């Protein structure tokens, strides 16, 4: 221990910091980032995360393709995004450095595992010259730390083989960053104890590496300062750090409780939706049934079968899975049964970018079926909002007996934020009643059940479930006679049924809240967004206003039907811009529905918008 180092070192207070952990996909970077996030959440920071990993489980070690990164933004105030650019990059090897260095602003810090900067690793990463020697890192503050050596040294006493002990180096990095940002150590040590309880040697070697990293920061004279990010002034309440997929799964469990109906999930594993299946399968004591189906089609088909049986059928998927479910969604439109189709959007077309985010399924959800087959669409805006979006989608499905698309995306699914726990008593009652009695008369005036006799208010048909005596009926994908539901090929009847199904979905507009506009007197530009771009757009709007410029923001959770006031809102501003992670799908809908010159701001890089990109776009629009 060198006392001088500790004595001369200063502590700087930061209002926010963005840290990116990067390494090989086998290096445990997601876990490292996740731990740092959890500790920061418990510490009381506001935060937002962006995991970014390759689709390959273990791409060749040391290559650019195999780099896995986790970015976390922590702050002492309300933040909305995982941050545009890291202030600190922790790079476990040359590939991680090379893949990420271009995202760093000048002046950023780079903490390197110097042990991995040998000739072979440099070559694998595609470096012709050692970046530590060729001046390419001038402008950054570089900390060269022999993480592998120090980890092996620390883990020596466990008797673990070097090859195994080396795997703890991510905990060394975590320990170092924990020290650098004044995070508490106990929660992580406790976590390591629990997580690796079954393997003493791994538990010990991780704990020792973590402590060694922490102590290294304290002892070595490498760091001139440490940093503090004070807790944020969040609204009073109890918080947990939650990812979009967990929030969504919990929202479905809540919907089941609020509807007083069991839920049934039919799902086929697919990235990035699988975690919802994993999470729901844990909660059998809530009466949740989960079926890992033989394929995507069986996932939605089994869910629809469960809905016919009087449960809320749900299917979760992503990318190509949505294509495969289309036919069954059309059947659900025709059967007029509740069904949730949850799409965690990812880059497409085809297999596309399985682990990267995109918002390019909106028009698929809207139109991706043969025939006139309207389906309501709900979109989640933040990781925590996935909880409420799930309840709202379930409400619409149950009340209107219709399939409903719930759109999330890879960014929301894996991203996390502090989330104030709702009081279950404050959540809406979304229960519905099954039909129990005949509702009409058949031939010769006998009592009969007419499965397509609609509620005049909602246009929903009665939901009579098997097991109810006297209401036996047959439904199917063939066109049905209005009222009786019998097969009908009558031309006028078909047109009436097409219009009734459309009117039913359109009528939901009366039953959803008007879109709220974050308005500003005198603003000429309205930014309209939907789904996961909420954080980036809102942050950009705040920055624009901080520059003294005026802008308004409306963010849509309901995409079909649109809120009833949307026409009036978009016509209230001379300029309308629509940022989307697609080639302009919402803007196309706005243009066709409202004859408004909505300008598309498009990004399809598998990465969320940066705040600065949107800030620039808004400023240009204001000045245009």
């Amino acid at each position, binding site marked *: 221990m060198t006392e001088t180092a500790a004595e001369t070192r200063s502590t700087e207070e930061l209002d926010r910091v963005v840290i990116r952990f990067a390494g090989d996909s086998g290096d445990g970077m997601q876990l490292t980032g996740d731990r740092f996030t959890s500790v920061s*959440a*418990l510490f*009381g920071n506001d935060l937002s995360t962006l995991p970014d990993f390759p689709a390959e489980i273990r791409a060749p070690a040391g290559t650019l393709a195999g780099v896995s990164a986790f970015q976390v933004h922590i702050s002492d105030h309300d933040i909305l995004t995982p941050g545009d650019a890291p202030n600190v990059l922790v790079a476990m090897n040359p590939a991680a450095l090379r893949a990420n260095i271009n995202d760093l602003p000048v002046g950023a810090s780079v903490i390197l595992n110097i042990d991995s900067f040998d000739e072979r690793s440099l070559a694998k990463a595609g470096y012709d010259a050692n970046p530590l020697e060729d001046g390419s890192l001038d402008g950054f503050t570089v900390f060269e730390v022999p993480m592998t050596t120090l980890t092996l040294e620390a883990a020596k006493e466990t008797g673990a083989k070097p090859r195994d002990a080396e795997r703890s180096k991510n905990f060394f990095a975590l320990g170092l960053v924990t020290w650098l940002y004044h995070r508490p150590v106990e*929660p992580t040590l406790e976590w390591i104890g629990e997580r690796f309880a079954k393997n003493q040697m791994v538990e010990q070697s991780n704990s020792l590496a973590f402590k060694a990293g922490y102590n290294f920061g304290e002892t070595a004279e490498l760091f001139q300062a440490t940093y503090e990010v004070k807790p944020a002034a969040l609204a*009073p*309440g*109890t*918080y*947990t*750090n*939650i990812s979009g997929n*967990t929030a969504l799964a*919990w929202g479905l*469990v*809540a919907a089941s*409780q609020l509807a007083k109906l069991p839920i*049934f999930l*039919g799902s086929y594993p697919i990235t990035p939706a699988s975690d919802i299946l994993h999470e729901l399968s844990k*909660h*059998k*004591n*809530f*009466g949740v*049934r989960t*079926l890992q*189906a*033989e394929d995507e*089609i*069986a996932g939605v*088909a*089994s869910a*629809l*079968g*469960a*809905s*016919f*049986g*009087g*449960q809320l*059928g749900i299917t979760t998927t992503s990318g190509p899975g949505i294509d495969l479910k289309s*036919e*069954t969604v059309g*059947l659900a439109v025709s059967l007029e049964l509740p069904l949730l189709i949850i799409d965690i959007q990812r880059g497409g077309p085809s297999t596309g970018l399985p682990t990267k985010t995109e918002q390019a399924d909106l028009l698929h959800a809207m139109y991706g079926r043969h025939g006139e087959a309207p389906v309501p669409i709900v979109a989640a805006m933040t990781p925590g909002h996935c909880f409420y979006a799930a309840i709202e989608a379930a409400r619409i499905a149950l009340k209107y007996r219709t399939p409903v698309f719930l759109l999330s995306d890879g960014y929301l699914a894996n991203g996390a934020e502090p989330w104030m*726990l*709702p009081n*279950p008593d404050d959540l809406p009652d979304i229960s519905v009643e099954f039909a129990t009695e005949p509702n009409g008369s058949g*031939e010769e005036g006998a009592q009969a059940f007419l499965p397509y006799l609609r509620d005049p208010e909602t246009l929903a048909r009665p939901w009579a479930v*098997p*097991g*109810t*005596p*006297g209401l*036996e*009926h*047959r*439904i*199917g*994908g*063939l066109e049905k006679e209005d009222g009786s539901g019998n*097969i009908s090929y009558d031309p006028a009847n078909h047109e009436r049924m097409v219009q009734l199904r459309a009117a039913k979905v359109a009528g939901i507009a009366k039953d959803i809240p008007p879109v709220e506009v974050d308005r500003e007197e005198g603003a000429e530009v309205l930014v309209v967004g939907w789904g996961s771009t909420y954080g980036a757009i809102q942050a950009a709007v705040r920055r624009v206003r901080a520059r003294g410029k005026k802008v308004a923001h409306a963010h849509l959770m309901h995409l079909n039907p649109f809120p009833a006031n949307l026409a009036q809102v978009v016509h209230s501003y001379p300029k309308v811009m629509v940022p989307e992670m697609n080639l302009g799908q919402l803007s196309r809908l706005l243009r066709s529905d409202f004859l408004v010159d909505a300008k598309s701001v498009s990004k399809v890089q598998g990465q969320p918008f940066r705040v600065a990109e949107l800030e620039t776009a808004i400023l240009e629009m204001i000045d245009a």
Partner: protein
Amino acid sequence: MPDAPTTTKKDWSTDQEVRWCPGCGDYSILTAVQMLMPDLGVRRESTVFVSGIGCSSRFPYYMNTYGMHSIHGRAPAIATGLAVARPDLDVWVITGDGDGLSIGGNHLIHALRRNVNLTIVLFNNQIYGLTKGQYSPTSEVGKVTKSTPFGSLDRPFNPISLALGAEATFVARTHDMDRKHMQATFTRAYEHKGAAFVEVYQNCNVFNDGAFEQILSKDARPKNLIPLEHGQPIRFGPEGEKGVVLDGDGVRIADVADVGEDKLLVHDETRTDPSVAFMLSRLANGPYEPTPIGVFRAIQAPDYGTAVQQQLLDAQERRGPGDLAKLLASGSTWTVGNGK
């Protein structure tokens, strides 16, 4: 629940006009089922027929129960969701050779593999009827149809072999010319707990008339139908002169006079290993030579819906009924004060 009320065939029939071609084998299957239901002692409201697409799949419209005429091939998947959600129901799946073995083949084998509590009846007429006469996955090689003017090249599935390959716990074959045999087979299938698979040889008199003539005509039956009866030696022929033996080469047909009665294979539906049943399913290369009919396999195994239900009950027993507030607070939490 009290016993089901006494019913007649009429109670199980709907007011919908039956729209199969006159003379279609489907009529006799429908009549067999409608007449059987009163004898099964079941309730209309607890019975659901689910079908896919094709001639056979119109079946639910004619049964006065709950029913769903769904989409092509997906009936086993839809029925799986229904049976798992509602283990209290009797769920029947009506399908055909195109619906169940071509477009829906995957769902069929997985419903059988999981042993979902379903009674699956596959009408096999070896042709596509509703689309007007293309060859099906059970059509014989060389079949000349609209889509195969030079004869089909595809080798056919044997539905019984397929079901046994998926280790279905109940597998049987019957045919549309014998109401009694159909009803006995359907009764066994209905009573089986788990996935029951019944292939029904069904004549399409418009597009594939006489496909089973060589084994099902009155004259041919004694010679070419091999009745499978549990616990009985397998023998057939007008005088019972033929029999089935199992030896080093598998099962084969022999003259009883040559091998002796003692050497005949005694049929055992309950063999855990499906291999012998599979060998029996391979005895005939097609419906033109001696073909086994009856129950190939019937074993007891846990059914999927009940097992799923049991997991829920166990979880509730162990952890108590779900508590939403507890779930929401199950991760690490922290509290931000109200500033007072």
